[in-house]
Every structure is written in structure tokens, then in C-alpha cells.
């Protein structure tokens, strides 16, 4: 019995970070209606930045976040302006393949700059842990989980209660009507994309002390986020959070019982099954994913 609780706990902690990655992805899809296939590379970038700040400047990852997250926010603004905005009215094929090519571009840029070596932030508190009864809990993982959940809640509060948040929600619901009531939709797109990048940047900072990073780390982790986003319902923040946590737990159990090798296999089968049987996910808006076909 104890092992199940332990597995569930460690799965939940990792799931918190998955949730944070997925929330950024789903927010961008909900508002811009673009799937950012390069989302994982922004995660990689944040992890690299955290690593270099730790090793070159001696900045603790939690301090580094004060620099890394704003950098990612600005990069999000730049990416939206230079690439994503130009694809919004373009044919579907351009939308998909521009972000896909961007992902390839960034991956290889990291490869050229940093080689494919794994780099790890070795903070001295990485292994610190405490025990509650029979359960063994890592401080770092618990703090990362708490920070992820806090950021997700902060985003939800921002969207729900601030003026800007209301404008973002309005744009997500109906971009033409939003423009009619005087919302600067282009600015909302830029802001939303930048928020998505900042969130994945925060996730990168939190992951850096837990996982070593190389140019392909983000591409591997983003698969989980795609499953979570579709499972939660594309565009739904509550859905992505819930699905992120759930997938953390599923992963923890499946790697214990099936072994890590089949982990990705399980993801993809789950993914195809969701798309086949319930493509709206938990809370997705009906009509966004399936067409009426004869």
C-alpha cells in the first residue's frame, strides 16, 4: 500500500511541472488557434539559461528565474511578431510547418552552440528530503510542485479578474467580436504568446535542478505536454492542469510496473485513444477538433 502512495506522490510532483508546461501550450492554442510545435525548445532554452547562470555566474536557479522568465517573455514577443503573426491568416499548412521548422531550427541552434552533451545544475540542496511517516519527500520536488501550482493559479486569477485577462478570454471566444468592442487583438496575441513562453520558462527553471539538459530535452518532455493538452481539452487551462497532474501519476506508475523503456509507447497509445474516442478531452470546446464528415 505504501508504495502506491509513494508513487502517487512522486508522480503528482512531476505532474505539477507537466501542468505548467501544458498550460502555456493550451493558452496559446486557445487564443491564437495555433499549435506551437516549438514550445519544447523554449523549455530547453530556459533550462540552458538556468544552467549557465548557475555555473558561470553562480546564481541559484530560484534567483536566476528573475532573469530567465523575463528573457523568455521578451523572446515570446519577438517570435510572435516575426513569425507567428505572419502565419495567422496563412493557409493551415504554413501554420503547422512554420512552428515545426522553428522547433528544428532552435534544436540545431542549441546543438551548434552547446553540443549534445548533457549539462546538469548540481545544487547542494538537490538531494535534501524529509520524511512524513513512511513517505520520503524531496524538498526540491515539493517546492517545484508548489511553485508550478501557484503560477497556474496566478494565471487563472489574472485571466479571471484583470481587465487584460478578460480581453484575452474575449479574444479566445470570438476574435471578430473582440475586435468590434475595441480590443487590440494583435496586442492580445503578442501578450498571450509571451505569457505562454514565460510560463514554459518558469517550468524550465524549476526542471533545471531535477533533469540534465541537452538540445533534445524539451522535444522529449513536450510530448507529455501534448498528451496533457489534448486530454485536458485544447484551450482549457483547468483541463491541462488536471491532465498534467494525472499524466505525472500515470507515468510514475507505468515506469515502476512496466519499466521506463515503454513509457513513451504508453503515452502515444493513450494519445491516439483519446483522439479516437474523446477528442474534446475533459473540458475542450466542442467543434474545435472534429469536423462533420460524411
Amino acid at each position, binding site marked *: 500500500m505504501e508504495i502506491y502512495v509513494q508513487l502517487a506522490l512522486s508522480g503528482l510532483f512531476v505532474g505539477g511541472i507537466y501542468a505548467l508546461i501544458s498550460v502555456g501550450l493550451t493558452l496559446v*492554442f486557445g487564443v491564437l488557434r495555433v*499549435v506551437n510545435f516549438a514550445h519544447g525548445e523554449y523549455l530547453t532554452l530556459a533550462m540552458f539559461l538556468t544552467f549557465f547562470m548557475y555555473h558561470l555566474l553562480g546564481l541559484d536557479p530560484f534567483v536566476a528565474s528573475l532573469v530567465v522568465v523575463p528573457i523568455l517573455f521578451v523572446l515570446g514577443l519577438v517570435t510572435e511578431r516575426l*513569425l507567428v503573426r*505572419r*502565419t495567422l491568416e*496563412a*493557409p*493551415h*499548412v*504554413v*501554420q*503547422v*510547418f*512554420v512552428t*515545426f*521548422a*522553428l522547433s*528544428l*531550427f532552435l*534544436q*540545431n*541552434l542549441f*546543438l*551548434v552552440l552547446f*553540443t*549534445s552533451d548533457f549539462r546538469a545544475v548540481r545544487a547542494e540542496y538537490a538531494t535534501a528530503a524529509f520524511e512524513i511517516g513512511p513517505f520520503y519527500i524531496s524538498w526540491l520536488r515539493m517546492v517545484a510542485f508548489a511553485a508550478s501550482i501557484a503560477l497556474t493559479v496566478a494565471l487563472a486569477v489574472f485571466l479571471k479578474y484583470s481587465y487584460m485577462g478578460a480581453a484575452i478570454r474575449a479574444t479566445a471566444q470570438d476574435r471578430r467580436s473582440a475586435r468590434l468592442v475595441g480590443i487590440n487583438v494583435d496586442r492580445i496575441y503578442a501578450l498571450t504568446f509571451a505569457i505562454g513562453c514565460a510560463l514554459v520558462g518558469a517550468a524550465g527553471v524549476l526542471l533545471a535542478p531535477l533533469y540534465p539538459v541537452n*538540445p533534445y530535452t524539451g522535444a522529449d518532455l513536450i*510530448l507529455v505536454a*501534448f498528451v496533457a493538452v*489534448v486530454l485536458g481539452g*485544447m484551450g482549457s487551462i483547468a483541463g491541462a492542469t488536471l491532465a498534467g497532474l494525472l499524466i505525472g501519476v500515470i507515468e510514475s506508475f507505468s515506469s515502476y510496473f512496466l519499466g521506463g*523503456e*515503454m513509457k*513513451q*509507447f504508453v503515452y*502515444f*497509445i493513450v*494519445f*491516439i485513444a483519446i*483522439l*479516437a474516442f474523446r*477528442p474534446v478531452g475533459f473540458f475542450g470546446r466542442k467543434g*474545435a*477538433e*472534429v*469536423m*462533420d*464528415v*460524411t
Partner: protein
Amino acid sequence: MSERSTSNPAGAAPARMPHHAWSIAAFALLVSLPLLVSDPFVLNMVMMSLLSAAAALAWNLSGGYAGQLSLGHAAFYGIGAYTSTLLFLKAGISPLLGMLVGAAISAAAAIVLGMITLRLKGAFFVMSTLAFGAVIHISAINFRELTGGSSGLAIPLQPSVLNLTFANKAVYVYLALGLMAAYYAATLLIAGSKLGYSLVAFRENQDAARALGIRTLPIRIGIFALSAAMTSLCGTLHAQYFLYIDPDSVMSLSLSLNFALMAIVGGLGTAYGPIIGAAVVTCVSLAMQIYLGNQISGLTQLAYSAIVISVLLAMPGGLGPGLRDALSRRFGWRP
């Protein structure tokens, strides 16, 4: 979107050199090329261009004409390569028969996948094919007893027509040329048929197509299966040319991406686009590998992805139609 379709608008008199003449001239040039060139590097470049062009033409039938942007086609390529190779190695069955078995398996897999995923919209369909490609790739790595896992399978060099193995590499160039020519002809045939028009109608406006009474799902599944079978044959030819296959070289996501990008860069939904795209992408990639690749890893791919982004943003219709428009604007000449 009229610039994407290959046929003339009804009633427009073709006051220029007809398509066929250009095709035949290009074909004749390609036929004579292996006889004129003996340099193995150039021959390999021609071979890879032709094989890629065939695969890109196959992808384009489903991805271009029907707008079904699959990123899982490497799975069909891999199924083709592995089926013919395994049948040959384990049961001594000729790859000539094995390639047909592979094509049948690929078509069957595409029908099942298509029934599940072809009702999904845009990005959802892309992601589902991505997942399918990954499942097949991971399976090939993990079922070691059958597939040899990551270390791959080698085909012994026993040259004979029945073994589809030849000592002279130029023979493969002709095989790939034949395959590409057949796929090009098939594309022209389909594009000019009711089926082709139905697919384009559906791609451009689903509701209007349905209102016209086009039953789209069966024909979309059909073209997906045909495209899968055609990709599968390319996979077998790949295996026979290299006499070695492993999951990363015949099933990886980057391969799927390449088929799609060649068609897109050349001109999506046109018959000649994938051929132009394959020639440009293959030659540029190989050339970059020689001049840049050995110094820093990743540089070739970096330049490649930058080129793709520029083409997508500057000429969303692809290089073929884009250059054609530029030529006709400038010189009033439409090749």
C-alpha cells in the same frame, strides 16, 4: 487557390508549350544522366533526389490534394522496408513480392488509422499521425527478436533480378526514376479526375463540398491508403539500394517531416512541386553536408530549417508556383 491546381481553367486555350513536352524533356535528361555520369557521389545524389521525389509525390497525393498533413508517413516507408527485408531474410521471399506485401500492410494500416483520425481537424490530425509514426518507430526499436532493434538489418549482396539486388548502382537510379515517373503520371491522372476535384473541393471548403453531395470520408481514406502504399514501395527500394536498414534511417520523425517539407517547398498540391522540392532539398542538403557538415554538427539542419521558414513565409505556395508567377510577371513567360 487556383494557382495550386495543375490543370488549366476550363476553356483557356494553352497558348504555350504543353506540360507534357516539358515532362518528356526532363525525363529524357534524367534517363541519359546515369549513362553520362559515373561519379558515385553525383549518382548517389541523383538516386536520393529521385527516391525522395517519389516519396514526396506519394505524400503530396494525400497531404497536398486532400490537405491531410500527415507527419507519420515514415511509418509506411519503414513498413515497406522492413516487410520486404524480413520476408527475404527469414523466408527467402523475393523483395519483388515482398514490396507488394509491404504496400498491402501499409494500406491496411492507413485505412485503420484513417478511420480513427481523418475526422479530426487540422492540428489534431497532424498530432495523431505524429503519434502513429512514433508508435511504429518505438515498436521497431523494441521488438528486437523480429526487427533486430536499433542495430538494424543487413541484406546480403547477392545480385539478381529476383533478389532486386544489383551490383551496378545505376540500375537503382532507373528503378527510382521509373517509380517517380509512375507516381507523377498517377498524380496527373488523379488530379484531372473527379476524385481529384472532389479532394480539392473538400480541402478548400468542407461545407460547400458536402453541400454538393461529395461523400468525402471514403475517398479521403482511400487516397490516404494509396499514398501509404506508394510510400511503402519507396521504403523497399531504399532498403534494396542501401542493403541496410535501421529504425532511425527508415522510420524517424525527421523522415516524415522531410517528405512533407519537400512537397511543401516545391509546391503543395501540384504534380511537379514535389519533384522540384525533392531535387532542391536533397541537392542543397548533400552539398551543405559536404561544405559545412563535417565542422560542426547541426549546422546543415540549422540552415535547412531557416530556408524552410523563409520559403513558407515568402512563397506559401512553394518554389515551383512561386517562381512561375515571378517569371510570368517579369517576362510574361509561363513554363
